[in-house]
């Protein structure tokens, strides 16, 4: 198996804080790799080390089998979480500048810039200064600037942040085309679980600087249990714990947890468990304000693995 990025015991310490703790990841060539984790889990720090912007405290990073210190600049393109744009340049000027900085030959530069503007629906704004673009346009330009030199690896750090559904679709299609048409390796960090589920071939979940799971989205969902999720909102959430204790006694219940004042029940054939659950609700003299039944999602996996506590 060919790996495009390989980290070996990658560690980063900031004084007493261990931001990344012995991270071992192998990212395959030509895959979209979802890199998930709660805020402060060490995702951005790991990524900054993987692209050479931050020196690791210890450990090794191999890019296509070569130590990151020895690779040619331009092999990696990063689309950062924040907008990194020159406010007083136009879209075309910005793209031409970065193409020049990456030494893209002049004879193909114009064609590439025009293609990027077209693919990311920015052609009409080619000569508009950045400060006059909308938020979605700026974010698309942010991506375009990261790939104008056609890097082998593209790192996208929360690229959909603040995008409307239309812009998100444009972005998702472009990410898919980078993998399927251009054969690039894409690392995607996001807090949008549907985005990670929809785009990623494999997903790595980090928490407290450590990799806690790495698998395909399907396998991850299976790992925490097949079946459905029932969510109940009681008229008096203070009695949630009392009901949770009763529900746990029911056969084939995989897990019952409280999330955001709701009771989250994961079970095989959850619909058949509903009459029993309703009996318990009546027994403690309460009523159900809201009830939903749905299939397992990546978000359930994420919460199951990283917990519900805030990290900030």
């Amino acid at each position, binding site marked *: 198996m060919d790996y495009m990025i390989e980290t070996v015991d990658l560690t980063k310490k900031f004084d007493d804080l261990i931001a990344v703790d012995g991270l071992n990841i192998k990212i395959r060539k030509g895959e979209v790799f979802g890199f998930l984790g709660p805020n402060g889990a060490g995702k951005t720090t790991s990524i900054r080390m993987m692209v050479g912007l931050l020196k690791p405290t210890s450990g090794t990073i191999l890019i296509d089998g070569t130590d990151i210190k020895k690779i040619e*600049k331009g092999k990696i393109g990063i689309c950062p979480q924040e907008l990194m744009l*020159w406010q007083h340049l136009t879209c075309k000027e910005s793209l031409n500048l970065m193409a020049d900085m990456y030494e893209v030959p002049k004879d193909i530069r114009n064609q590439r810039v025009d293609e990027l503007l077209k693919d990311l629906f920015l052609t009409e704004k080619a000569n508009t200064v950045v400060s006059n673009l909308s938020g979605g346009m700026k974010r698309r330009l942010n991506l375009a*600037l990261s790939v104008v030199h056609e890097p082998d690896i593209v790192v996208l750090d929360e690229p959909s942040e603040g995008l409307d559904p239309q812009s998100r679709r444009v972005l998702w299609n472009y990410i898919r085309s980078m993998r399927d048409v251009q054969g690039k390796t894409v690392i995607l960090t996001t807090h949008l679980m549907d985005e990670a589920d929809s785009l990623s071939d494999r997903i790595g979940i980090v928490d407290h600087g450590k990799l806690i799971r790495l698998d395909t989205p399907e396998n991850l969902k299976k790992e925490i249990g097949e079946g459905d999720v029932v969510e109940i909102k009681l008229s008096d959430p203070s009695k949630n714990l009392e009901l949770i204790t009763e529900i746990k006694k029911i056969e084939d219940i995989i897990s019952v947890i409280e999330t955001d004042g709701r009771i989250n029940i994961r079970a095989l054939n959850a619909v058949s468990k509903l009459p029993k659950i309703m009996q318990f609700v009546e027994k403690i003299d309460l009523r159900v304000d809201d009830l939903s039944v749905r299939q397992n999602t990546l978000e359930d996996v994420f919460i199951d693995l990283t917990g519900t506590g805030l990290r900030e």
Partner: protein
Amino acid sequence: MKFTSIAVKDFKELIRDRRGLFFILLFPIFFMTIFGFAFGGMGQDNTPHNIAVVNYDDGTTLATGETFNFGNNITNEIKELTYTNSDVKMFNVTETSESNADSLLKQRTVDAELIIPSNFSASMASQIASSTGLPTNINTTVSSPIIRGDEGYSNFFASESALNGFLTEYQSGILSNYKNQLAGTPVAEPVKYVNVTVQGISGTQSFTQFDFLAPGMMVFAILLLSTTIAAILTREVESGTLERLKMSKMRSFDLLFGGLIPWSLVAGAQVVILLFVAVILGLHWQGGISSVILATIIGIIGGIGSIALAMILASFAKNDRQAANLGTLIVVPISFLVGAFFPLPQVFVSVLGHTFQIYELIPWIHTLDALRGVLLYGEGLNAVAYQIELSLVLTVILFIIGVVLYSRTRLRADN
């Protein structure tokens, strides 16, 4: 040539940021205008300078056998001196004791005090003997007349400058008088036996305080550039665009040399614009187009120094506001130290046997001296070459420090 793309980028950003451009170009013009109106007439109105003269001179016997008191003679000449083409006296002279003169100075009843030492006549005799070859009946004597005054008082500089000019004229007048009397006597290279201890600024009576200030304002504007450039460099870090460039194949040289081109041109443009404004406001500008070209080149060198200072500031500032504040904190004292607004007391230091003024280590002091020489005295390249060379050497040193610091703190991978 990636640096050309960086230069074009910086130039476009500079032109399109109207507010920033306004600050860079119009703020110094605004200052120049205010100073022009405030000081434009000062010293120009043919009004007498009020001075006190303290004469300790014992007199001397010249080689010709004549007994003479040069102290009395110069005092009388000062009293009789008038402005060119005018009956107005140049000085109102109060002859008094040193303690009383000091007290008059403190009350600002007089603008300056001239102290003629007891050996003034003896030193003049030595000077005459040295210049004419006549034997002297006394030992070689060096005297030090003192021009004393309140250095925080603007009238002092005008009086000091006029007095200095006159003292120099007096000595050369006396010498040429004796040389004429003894025509044919072999003349040795004259040695100075009278050293006035206050540094002269200008001997031209028509100069105003604004003439002194205008080149200073140009240097102040050039120095102010460093706060703007430091803020822009820091903004590039803050906005993350520098990180983008760091990821690319751009070298430190491309970024820094690319930035150097538009900003040094701005410095040159500032000199031209401010000269134009200053001339409108009454600057006694000497020289023609060549002096403007030379002044622009001097301004560009000063501008490169400011870019170097900006890199140093941007190495430490965490955001553009901090860079601007830190810049102001550094630039304003430097402006005073280089004498942009008024001359500073002389502070000499000695290193490896060389004695020099401590301010001479600041590159912009030479920018200012060269600008004053070119614009006020109409001096050519040869006359200011030494100042330009010193300015260049110090700027190169500062630039190397700036490049090293900025590259280490901003252009390498974070630790």
